[in-house]
């Protein structure tokens, strides 16, 4: 029942809520699943030195990032008893309030789903070569820094 098919992680622009709904719907046929944990990263309209972030423009070292996503996937399936796992990350511009990261982990029981999902998110933040320009209204920007 394990599904380890490699799909494209990067999507251009924001990840739409309806795409997330459709992804959930696809799991209706997988009746060994008892628990899904879904993490969504959303762009915040942070205020930085008096200017408000209107969007983040994501870029990446794509070849290395795809390798890293594959390594994360292999390691998480080796460690946890999962039914399936999907990762989507935005590339290009994502406005404040829109979704830039979608991690979807499914398992028989909740413990595995919770732990694996959290671990995948931490691994992405730590090990995948992705950067973001926080864009302001006047088209100036600062480079985003991740906090723990």
């Amino acid at each position, binding site marked *: 029942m394990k599904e380890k098919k490699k799909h494209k992680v990067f999507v251009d622009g924001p990840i739409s809520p309806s795409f997330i709904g459709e992804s959930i719907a696809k799991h209706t046929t997988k009746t060994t699943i008892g628990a899904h944990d879904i993490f969504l990263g959303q762009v915040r309209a942070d205020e930085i030195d008096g200017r408000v972030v209107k969007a983040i423009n994501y870029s*990446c*070292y794509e070849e290395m990032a795809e390798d890293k996503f594959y390594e994360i996937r292999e390691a998480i399936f080796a460690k946890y008893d999962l039914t399936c796992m999907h990762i989507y990350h935005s590339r290009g511009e994502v406005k404040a309030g829109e979704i830039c990261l979608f991690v979807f982990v499914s398992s028989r029981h909740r413990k595995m789903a919770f732990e694996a999902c959290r671990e995948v998110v931490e691994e992405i933040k730590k090990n995948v070569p992705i*950067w973001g320009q926080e864009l302001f209204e006047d088209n100036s920007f600062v480079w985003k820094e991740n906090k723990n």
Partner: protein
Amino acid sequence: MKIEVIVFGMIADIIGKQKIEVNNCSDTTSLQIKLTHDYPKLCQQKFVMAVYKKVITGNTNLNNGDVVAILPPFAGG
């Protein structure tokens, strides 16, 4: 001997392009010395280097045609 250096994020802002060629660097330490000499602003910048998509943790020998990436701190998610 030519090394292809690809740069990302704020490092690309400092260098002004996404790809440069560097000659006569036989290892990553000498490459780093050459880059910080040519682009002094790199000294104030945190980064790691990756050779063929693998982040290196110590000095690594380089051969003609190798691809080295200069990666500022990751900020995905």
